[in-house]
């Protein structure tokens, strides 16, 4: 690991300082970290001086490492040696036409032409409809049947395609094929006028508008040498926690709906709205769109807003406690939640799950604790108790995090500190620089990575939603489960389609 550069979350680094290793050393260094309880934060390709380059950011404990290397049009896959690289290498193959040799599961990720117009790794003709040449994993045998669902699902929900290989009611394998939501976010971000960046980042995944835009603004602030005042930091943290509560509450409601226990579904559904309305109190939008801008926040949090937030927390806290108790003490609910969709700790570790999905399987990583920014260094962490990796654990982590986030908001709202609203800050990005930013969004680790060229223009903008890690976890949770438990497993993960598809 001596040949890697240690970096910090949200710290500007000169591109010249990123060690460019020979490929063999690069591969070995990455595998060494990944094998020793290290995880991949970013692993992507970009073009520089007419050559393909790979860049990796890994985390191990509280340390972040970065390294780069040059590759040709193919290289020996890392996934063959460690599963954590699986989706990242597929993405590199799709975006840049670089083939990872001996990748055990080399399929398209989002179904689009590669950026350089090179020969397609998947031999797809993109005038054909999605999914092109996509070899679904199939199980053969007399009693085997296949269930195909989507892209359009039965509900108000984003599109994706699911293939279940079943024997009777039991699922042997679930394959999740996405790409329907691909909007070209990563190709847009470096090319559009800078005024559009926050608006696009707030729509990478609308349910994570705060998480993604915060991660983006922190990166721009690092490269643009902008400082954020304490008052704005407080508003940002409150918004991130409100987003977490709203989504967790909504998902607990959906989980109770999926086990046909309607009272909590109705109550949680209504309570979720109360927290979206608090984001509207902060910035006029129920998803927090328009709140965070590079350099701070666009709206003040005055006494009136503080009081509205505190009053609403006082009002909803007992209601939330009571509805949670109603849900989690019903034996008919527990019979469905308990030991359903289990991802054992070892499996979660191999896949590199993040967020509540990881924590429910005993991987304690929480970016608010490990790589804290803004107000988080001096806020108390959450401790989750149940780590069986099943639906019950994933639901219980949500319950605990709702209560923890309510406490955090109460603490933060009482912190004084005025902020000067920002909305059109002028700034120049440092040339030939690199920054990676990490935040614990409500689903888990969000990371953005920016590279600037020698003129200070954005050259590469890499986005990673936590769903990029966790979709494989959902697929694994279905192994040997009843197909009727799919909705429950799915809602307990509640992953983002558009955050993955970009």
């Amino acid at each position: 690991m001596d040949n890697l550069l240690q970096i910090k979350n949200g710290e500007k680094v000169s591109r010249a300082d990123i060690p460019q290793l020979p490929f063999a050393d690069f591969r070995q260094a990455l595998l060494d970290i990944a094998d020793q309880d290290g995880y991949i934060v970013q692993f992507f390709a970009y073009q520089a001086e007419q050559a393909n380059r790979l860049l990796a950011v890994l985390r191990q404990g509280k340390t972040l490492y970065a390294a780069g290397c040059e590759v040709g049009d193919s290289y020996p896959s890392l996934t063959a040696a460690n599963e954590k690289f699986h989706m990242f290498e597929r993405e590199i193959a799709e975006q840049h036409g670089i083939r990872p040799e001996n990748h055990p599961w080399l399929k398209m990720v989002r179904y689009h032409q590669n950026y350089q117009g090179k020969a397609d790794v998947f031999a797809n003709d993109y005038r054909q409809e999605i999914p092109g040449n996509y070899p679904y994993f199939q199980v053969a045998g007399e009693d085997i049947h296949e269930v195909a669902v989507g892209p359009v699902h039965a509900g108000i929900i984003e599109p994706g395609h699911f293939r279940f290989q079943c024997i009777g009611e039991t699922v042997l394998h679930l394959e999740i094929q996405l790409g329907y939501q691909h909007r070209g976010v990563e190709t847009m971000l470096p090319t559009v006028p800078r005024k559009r960046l926050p608006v696009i980042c707030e729509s990478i995944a609308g349910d994570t508008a705060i998480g993604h835009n915060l991660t983006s603004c922190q990166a721009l602030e690092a490269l643009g040498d902008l400082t954020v005042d304490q008052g704005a930091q407080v508003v940002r943290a409150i918004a991130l926690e409100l987003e977490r509560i709203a989504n967790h509450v909504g998902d607990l409601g959906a989980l109770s709906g999926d086990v046909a226990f309607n009272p909590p579904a109705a109550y949680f559904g209504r309570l979720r709205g109360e927290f979206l309305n608090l984001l509207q109190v902060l910035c006029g939008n129920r998803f927090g769109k328009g709140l965070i801008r590079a350099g701070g926040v666009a709206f003040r949090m005055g006494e009136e807003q503080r009081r509205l937030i505190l009053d609403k927390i006082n009002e909803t806290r007992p209601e939330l406690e009571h509805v949670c108790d109603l849900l989690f003490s019903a034996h008919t609910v527990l019979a469905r939640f308990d030991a359903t969709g289990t991802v054992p700790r070892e499996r979660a570790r191999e896949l590199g799950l993040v967020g509540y999905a990881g924590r429910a399987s005993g991987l304690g990583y929480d970016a608010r604790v490990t790589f804290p920014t803004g107000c988080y260094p001096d806020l108390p962490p959450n401790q989750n108790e149940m780590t069986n990796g099943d639906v019950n654990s994933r639901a219980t982590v949500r319950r605990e995090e709702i209560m923890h986030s309510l406490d955090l908001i109460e603490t933060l709202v009482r912190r004084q500190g005025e902020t000067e609203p920002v909305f059109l800050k002028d700034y120049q990005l440092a040339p030939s620089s690199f920054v990676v930013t990490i935040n614990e969004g409500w689903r888990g680790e969000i990371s953005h990575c920016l590279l600037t060229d020698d003129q200070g223009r954005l050259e590469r903008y890499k986005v990673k939603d936590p769903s990029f890690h966790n979709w494989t976890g959902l697929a694994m949770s279905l192994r040997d489960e009843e197909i009727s438990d799919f909705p429950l497993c799915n809602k307990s993960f509640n992953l983002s389609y558009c955050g993955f598809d970009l």
Partner: protein
Amino acid sequence: MLKIIKNRMEQGCKTTRYPKEPISLYKRYRGLPEINRNCDPALIKRCAEACPQDAIDPVAIRIDLGRCTFCGQCEMQSEGKFITFTQNFEMATASREDLITDGTLPDLARHSKKHFKKLFGRSLQLRQVSAAGCNACEADTNVLNTPFFDLSRFGIDFVASPRHADGIHVTGPVSKNMRAALLTTFEAVPAPKVVIASGSCPISGGPFYGSDEVSGDLNSIIPVDLFIPGCPPHPLTTLHALLSYFK
């Protein structure tokens, strides 16, 4: 059982009386804009140039609500001298052109197609299609099924099968990869059928306008009957649109 009753009593009845009684949204919510046509043209030009969505036409002094994401930047930049956003959430229109506005909108109820009111006034079943939506529009549509809005009491429901639907409600800028699935869903709905574009994405591309991977104009793919602006539209904007257009 006792716990259910106890919770039921604590929760009480939370359903809004809207539209029988007016409802007011918090003052920071940004709805229909008011435009000061006598504003200094230089300031209008600066607002138009800084608008992330290029939604402001500084010559005609109009704002395109189909492009606008209601971020509020023009209001802050002009300190309310050019644009102020009101809390009026009733913003849907029956034509794309009407969304390009000087601050006034036609009465939706009077512009709806009369046969739709006759056909669907008492029962409207919609199939929602997310065509690369960011899940904000989807989420704030889903919310209409919660007890506060309780959409079903108006005879309006979102259904699973397009065969059971009277129309489609589309969110998202229509990515290349969702185009075929969207058309297949639309074709599966029996005629006569309605098409609703929800949010700035299907109307103008929204935040993703200009991307090669999206169409950004649902109306050019299938004719749209009802346009609901917003990023995302407030649930009340959608509720008002459905009730005015179909009831």
